[in-house]
């Protein structure tokens, strides 16, 4: 038996590539994904982001600086290519906003889903704290999560052109898209890694969705 045979990489279906654009808290998301049974890898490597069983866009900041951060390493191209090839991509918080198009905050997302990102209009902005997510239709992402409180921290929100993409809604000065799901692209506006047991279920659901996507 040759050395190359034993060193062949194993198929890693639980691997999650977290696209690193240089800002934000990716450690708590990594820890939460490990708890959900995944093998997260924070990376700027375009090949890994393109090929991993699931790619995640997460973190904090502006759509504009995040998009620039992704482009710096060619991760924007890698993410588009993987969706074109039918491989799943998910976004969390500003990562969800990055899936869409023009942002009122300035800048432009990846355009993987249609619709703008607009400022939240409510007496208190940012929309900050625990709020109840309501399932608007059956979905994989929010299975067993309907009516739970999850943690939000944002001033902008996506407004999908195709309203059928919205699988969960939250009320803050009016309805806001809390979760979106399509065949290969999904996202949540809240922070599952900071949303207690309900958030843990969302991450487990997300991994299950990615295997069937």
């Amino acid at each position, binding site marked *: 038996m040759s050395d190359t045979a034993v060193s062949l990489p194993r198929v890693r279906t639980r691997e999650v590539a977290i696209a690193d654009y240089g800002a934000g808290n990716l450690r708590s998301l990594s*820890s939460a994904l490990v708890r959900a049974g995944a093998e997260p890898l924070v990376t700027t490597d375009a090949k890994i982001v393109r090929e991993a069983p699931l790619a995640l866009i997460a973190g904090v900041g502006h759509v504009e600086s995040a998009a620039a951060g992704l482009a710096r390493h060619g991760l924007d191209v890698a993410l588009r290519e993987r969706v074109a090839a039918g491989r799943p991509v998910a976004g969390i918080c500003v990562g969800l906003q990055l899936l869409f198009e023009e942002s009122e905050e300035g800048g432009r997302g990846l355009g993987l889903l249609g619709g703008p990102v607009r400022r939240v209009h409510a007496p208190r902005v940012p929309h900050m704290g625990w709020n109840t997510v309501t399932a608007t239709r059956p979905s994989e992402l929010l299975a067993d999560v309907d009516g739970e409180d999850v943690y939000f921290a944002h001033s902008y929100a996506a407004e999908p052109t195709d309203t059928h993409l919205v699988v969960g809604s939250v009320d803050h000065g009016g309805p806001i898209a809390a979760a979106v799901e399509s065949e290969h692209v999904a996202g949540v506006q809240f922070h599952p890694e900071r949303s207690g047991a309900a958030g843990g279920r969302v991450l487990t659901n997300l991994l299950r969705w990615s295997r069937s996507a």
Partner: protein
Amino acid sequence: MVKKRVIPCLDVAGGRVVKGVNFENLREMGEPVDLATRYSELGADELVFLDITATLEGRGPTLEMIGRAADELTIPFTAGGGVTGVEDARSLLLAGADKVAINRAAFDDPAILEALSAEFGSQAVVCAIDARNGEVVTHAGREPRGREAVDWASEAVERGAGEILLTSIDADGTRAGYDLELTRRVAEAVEVPVIASGGAGEARHLAEAFEVGAEAALIASIVHERPERLPELKAELREAGWSIRS
């Protein structure tokens, strides 16, 4: 509707949680991440870690502790103390904090708030303001700065702060209730959430703070001595009709 938040605050000095009255006579309360995990299990909506010696002694933030907290906790937390600018904030956020609190450095150079919000987004930037009789004080309450806290809060928000952590130095540790007048004035002056801080002794005090417009209430002494008080407080607030996470 977004829930009102109850936020235990852990003042950290030398790797231990401490609590004093009016920022003096500090007493040890335990290991920060252990206490934080306990509070999370007991229903804390969020947590704040303040390294209260960092600015005074010129030490960097305790990143190792923040990293462990990020791994252990499933609720959000803010880290503060000794934050002087973008690089300190980046270290804390990369270590795993969800938000950073900045106090004196922002007051001394308000442009820092613009840099922080441009880099990390307003939702990650908490401007901490300590006040005595409505006036901004810094250096753990020892230096009056000759500016109305309401005025400074408004500027801080215009410059990019996404939340105001408003502490009444006079009320801190007394358990006699929050400075409601100041909390009301700041909550009316700004669009972002205001966290009332300093003086919580019972559920009524938190309800009063919510009534004058605070979105969240910081607590310390009452839960450090008996952590089981936390779910009781939240239950009492819920019974009084406040929208509180169960």
